[in-house]
């Protein structure tokens, strides 16, 4: 059995003259979680629809656990669960009826169906609300229900398109916890979102799309390395009485490009990879160092640095 859950190989998709997805390749290992981020119109949804067999690529192919989405879409569909960005459902259904409707679609045997519904409700924190009508659900609960529906046939690969869109911070937090649980159950997950802290928190690997192209892909450390700025920002805290002296000492060092005092802290910009020389210089001048840290680039900064705001 293939150790790669999803393999995207040089996929291109165009709509008339518009290139929605342009020669994208990456893979997701079994049990891995890949977060896709990108500005609106970057091609995330189109790519997810191609992975989910809902659209055909013009060229390239996608393999889900070794099966091509073009050659064997029916088999692929049994292995993946797609959670669309928008919630659609038949009218006047309770949560249980809604899940039963889709369980029946997935041909889950009648004897197993009730237990399966109970399991997914429990996993998505919908237990005890099975009799509630879908039309009266809050956005958070609708997203949970959509996720429950996505899980009803126990797929091994999950494609989640903007699952946290429109959720309040608490609901987002809960949804994040559910997704982490799913990842711990061995599901391979591809998730697209505009909420970067969520992606940073959930994903093992992150892909940044812009104008249909994959501009960066890898784990967070790799992305940081790839998009690292030329100068490193180091934050230093020294006793207040030594602040001016310390600033003078550090500014005189050859590798320090700037040294600012901000909120009783020194922010040093340096182009040297090893920052120990800063500590050495301060100790040499008998200045106590209370705090020494290097500013770590977060995903938002990486995203802003790696994208130019282009849309297709």
């Amino acid at each position, binding site marked *: 059995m293939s150790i790669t859950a999803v393999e995207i190989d040089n996929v291109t998709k165009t*709509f008339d003259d518009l290139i929605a997805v342009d020669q994208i390749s990456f893979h997701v290992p079994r049990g891995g979680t890949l977060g896709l981020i990108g500005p609106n119109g970057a091609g995330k949804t*189109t790519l997810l629809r191609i992975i989910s067999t809902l*659209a055909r690529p013009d060229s390239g192919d996608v393999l889900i656990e070794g099966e091509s989405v073009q050659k064997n879409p*029916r088999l692929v*569909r*049994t292995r993946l669960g797609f959670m669309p960005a928008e919630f659609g459902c038949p009218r006047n259904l309770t949560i249980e009826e809604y899940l039963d*409707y889709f369980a029946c679609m997935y041909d889950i045997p009648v004897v197993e169906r009730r237990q399966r519904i109970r399991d997914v409700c429990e996993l998505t924190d919908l237990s005890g609300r099975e009799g509630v009508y879908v039309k009266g659900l809050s956005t958070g609960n609708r997203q949970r229900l959509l996720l429950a529906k996505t899980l009803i046939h126990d797929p091994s690969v999950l494609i989640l398109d903007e699952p946290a869109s429109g959720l309040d911070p608490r609901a987002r937090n809960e949804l994040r916890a559910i997704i982490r649980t799913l990842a711990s159950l061995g599901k391979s997950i591809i998730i697209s979102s505009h909420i970067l802290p969520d992606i940073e928190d959930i994903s093992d690997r992150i892909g940044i799309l812009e104008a249909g192209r994959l501009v960066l892909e890898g784990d967070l450390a790799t992305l940081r390395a790839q998009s690292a700025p030329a100068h490193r920002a180091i934050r230093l805290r020294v006793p207040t009485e030594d602040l001016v002296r310390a600033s003078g000492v550090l500014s005189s060092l050859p590798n320090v490009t700037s040294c600012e005092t901000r909120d009783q802290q020194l922010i040093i910009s340096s182009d040297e990879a090893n920052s120990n020389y800063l500590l050495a210089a301060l100790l040499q001048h008998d200045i106590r160092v209370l705090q020494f840290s290097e500013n770590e680039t977060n995903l938002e900064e990486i995203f802003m640095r790696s994208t130019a705001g282009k849309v297709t």
Partner: protein
Amino acid sequence: MKAVRRFAELFRNSPTFGRDRANIISGITIGTTALLLNGVIMMMILPLMLDPDDIDFRMLTENMEFGQLLGLILLGGATAFATVLIPLRLASVFMAPRIGRYFDQIVLSGISPIRFLIGKVTSQNLFLALILFLLLPWFVLVLSLGGLEWPVFLGNLFLVWQYCMMLSLAMLWLSLYLNEVLAGLALLYVAAVLCAVGCAPLPWQPFVVTPFPALMYSVYSAVNLTDPELGGSYPGIFLACAAGMATVMAVSLGAIYLGPLYGITRDNSTFGEVVKAGDSKRRRRFRFRLHIQRPSELAFFYENRGDSFRKYEGLLRWGIALGFLLIAGTAAWSALYFLMTRHYLPFIRAGNRLPWVAYEFHTLCHGVHGVALILAVFLFSHARNTTYQRLPVIFGWKMQVSRMDSAAFGLFLLISTAVTIGIPLWIEQSAAIPAGVTLFPTTEMQSEQHVRQLDYLRLSVEGTLALSLCGVAVYFLQRTLCLSLWMKSMAMAVGALLYLAACITPMVLGAIIMEIPQLSANPLLKYNAPQLAMTSPVMFFLFLYQEGGPFFREGLSTAPFYLVQVSIIAACVIVMRPLGRRLRREYLGPLRTENK
């Protein structure tokens, strides 16, 4: 046993059945149905109650038990009710998931179209059960009044059930190709017309695709309106209705199984999903296509079906179409054979004079051939978005739709032409000559004074070949139009209009020249008018059957007809080449026209 269980499960375990069952067994549906149904029944009974002394009504009640009459009215009312409501009930099978934006989720579930749709059909049983349940008080009244003929009543009840199933399947079939609202209205219209003509006291009721011929039989036989010679008996009418409806059901089921051919949809196409920036608001209203065209929806009919269908799609699709034509043709020819050998020939052998028998026989033969060719033209042509698709035929071997169409049409044309020439000769040898008559006379007594010289052998052979040539011309016209139009039914309608114009115009012009003395005085016009009229296929056949009048009697050349037909074919070939090239360039490149 396992297969039986799986078959039963197909009906029981359809998600749409569960949803529809929940809808039917709800207070609002039961209440509304009860009100409307009783309204319909009251409307049907009211005229009888308002004027009980009406002479027709009295004649009816004198010859028929009132319980039996009321039973028929109830079943008729239930049929009328179902005619209106079943298409409406099924009008949301695809539209609701599209509007509710969960069609993609249905596609992703991998459910087969048949399993998805069959639940909708099965649930109509529940709807019929609800109708019958709501009619219970009326049935109690029927039993109290007495006189109910149970076998007839139960037979009619079966036909009403079959009619409901047929309506459901036909509606689903139409929904695959039309917007469901239009499909519902079209079905309602056709069913209403068929119900109305099914009520007519015809000696030989051909409209046996509704239960009305069987329902009305009891009434007409009570007042002696049935033809004892041709009208048959209730079992005969019952079987004819059951067979007629079963045929429509089988065709609908086959069409649902095949589904629409996977087409390439285009932005800003006539299906209207406008997604381009800068479109006006008015155009954006057409964003939402009302019937299935989106590739992910069409995928439902392809990818979610068994592997065998996907491997042998071409073989199945064209094979079923060809099989349907051959079976229908065999049925028509068998009916003609039995009509001749069981009815006409024994009638003549008994010493009766039937001067028109050969004429009618050959007209019927040409009629069968002509109708078969029209059906073949429709079945073996495809609109521009599918013409150049390549489909798997057998063992992974793929073939272009246009080539499959041409091959299938050519094959059917050969078979039908051979059969239309061969069967009259065979009937002549096997049945007519032993009966002492001929179907190929050279003279025919029309009246005591008038004897018509008509070469029936020429009529049969040349008429069939000419009809085949017309079929080829119409087919080329249809294929040419299909290269420009999105819907083959539209191409068929335009083609029919054009061909009709080619049939009628020269004939009318020729007639005008010959009938207006000022024009016919011109020797050039007078000489050429019959030739001009002869370019029309209608005139050609009138000439062949010697129905063309004094100007078209003898010695007139039929070359103009052949010349025009060949010219139509040649013109189509010339036009098809650039159109085909353009379409190939457009479609055989990367498929990049799907809407988001």
